[in-house]
Structure formats: structure tokens, C-alpha cells
């Protein structure tokens, strides 16, 4: 999404999905979450929020023409939102608690999941993924990697 004053925890989630490698993306994919699906859901959430105040995203898109683009502009520095920052702080803590010395997408995902009220978790729930199930899957995949 764009117009972004800040990058939210849902953007961190999209970032994890856009890197094919990594335990984070693997866990998400194994539960049926794809980058494409998450992007669509993200836009759907935005569209629903607009619809709640009587604004049609489709209408805006139609009137603004082909150059209208809601994606994150590349090359522009956008700060993390406080929620996303918290998720990253929490991620680092997860890494230490697990005794890992490499910061990975699984830690970021655990950091994101720590905030059940965040946009990312609500997006996952809308995609049919229970936060607990994702946490279990992450620990499972980690166990496999360690063993």
C-alpha cells in the first residue's frame, strides 16, 4: 500500500513473503499464504476501510486513470510505524531467547505475531491463518532445521 507515511507490520509481513528464502516465508506458504494473496487481502482491507466511510477505491482508481498506483513507491525512504518498530524490537528479543546468532525472517514473524492486535495478524486471520498455528509451524520448521 502506499501513501505511506510509515511502513506498518503488514508491510513487514509482505516483505517476508517477497523473499522466497527463509523460514518465515516457508511457514507462511505451508499454511497457504502467498505474496499475491496477502497483497490482495491488504488492498481488500484498505478498500473495506474506505467503503465504511462511503469512499470507493474502485471509483477513485477509475477517475484517476492508469497512473494511479497504491503500491509502495521505491526509492522513497519511509519510516517504520511504531507498531512495526515494536515488532522488530520483539524479533531481536526472540532471536536472543532462542539462542540464534543470525537474525532471520522467522524472528521477524514471531515479533509480528506478538502483537495480536496488529494489522498483520488481522490480515493473517482474514486469510484463514490462526496466529497460534503459524507460531507452531515456525517452531516446527526451526526444530527440523536444528535437528
Amino acid at each position, binding site marked *: 500500500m*502506499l*501513501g505511506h507515511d510509515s511502513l506498518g507490520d503488514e508491510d513487514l509481513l509482505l516483505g517476508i513473503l517477497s523473499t522466497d528464502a527463509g523460514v518465515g516465508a516457508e511457514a507462511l506458504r505451508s499454511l497457504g499464504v502467498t505474496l499475491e494473496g496477502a497483497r490482495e487481502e491488504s488492498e481488500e482491507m484498505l478498500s473495506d*476501510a*474506505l*467503503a*465504511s466511510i462511503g469512499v470507493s477505491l474502485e471509483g477513485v482508481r477509475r477517475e484517476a*486513470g492508469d497512473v494511479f498506483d497504491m503500491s509502495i513507491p521505491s*526509492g522513497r525512504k519511509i519510516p517504520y510505524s511504531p507498531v512495526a518498530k515494536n515488532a522488530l524490537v520483539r524479533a531481536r528479543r526472540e532471536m536472543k531467547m532462542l539462542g540464534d546468532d543470525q537474525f532471520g525472517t522467522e524472528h521477524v514473524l514471531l515479533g509480528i505475531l506478538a502483537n495480536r492486535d496488529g494489522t498483520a495478524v488481522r490480515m493473517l486471520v482474514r486469510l484463514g491463518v490462526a496466529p497460534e498455528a503459524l507460531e507452531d509451524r515456525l517452531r516446527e520448521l526451526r526444530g527440523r532445521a536444528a535437528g
Partner: protein
Amino acid sequence: MNEKARTRVGGPEDPREGLEAVVALRRTLEALEAAQVENAFIAGWSYARIAEVLGVTKQAVHKKHAKRIRAKYPGRPPGRGGA
């Protein structure tokens, strides 16, 4: 429109949806501004004229949009159209 869209939201009973609508609108506004500035550029408008209609300084428009537009339309100078 879906079921949710028809429900009245944003009242004191549902602050989250009301606040989320503000964020969504802000994001949409930014994307819309970017699109309309680009449309004006394509139509040959100068940044000065675009700024005048947007009610901001020419510098502000330049700072926010010129780099993106220059990258997208290389070799095309801003128009001299209008004021």
C-alpha cells in the same frame, strides 16, 4: 459492496474502524495526489501551475514529485503550460 461496508462504522462504538478509515483515506489521498500531479505533467503543466492549484509552493511539489516523475519520463522537461 460487502456486508461490512453497509454497516455504519466510526461511531463511538467502533473506534477502530473509524480510525482505520482515516489511515486508508490518507493513503489513498497520497496516491491520488501522485497520480493527478503526474496527469498534469503529462498534460504539459508546469510545476508552478500544479502547485498553484494544489495550494502549495512550487518547491513543495518539486520536492515530493519531481524525482519520481523524472525517473518515469526521462528526457521530458516539465511543461511551460500556464501561469
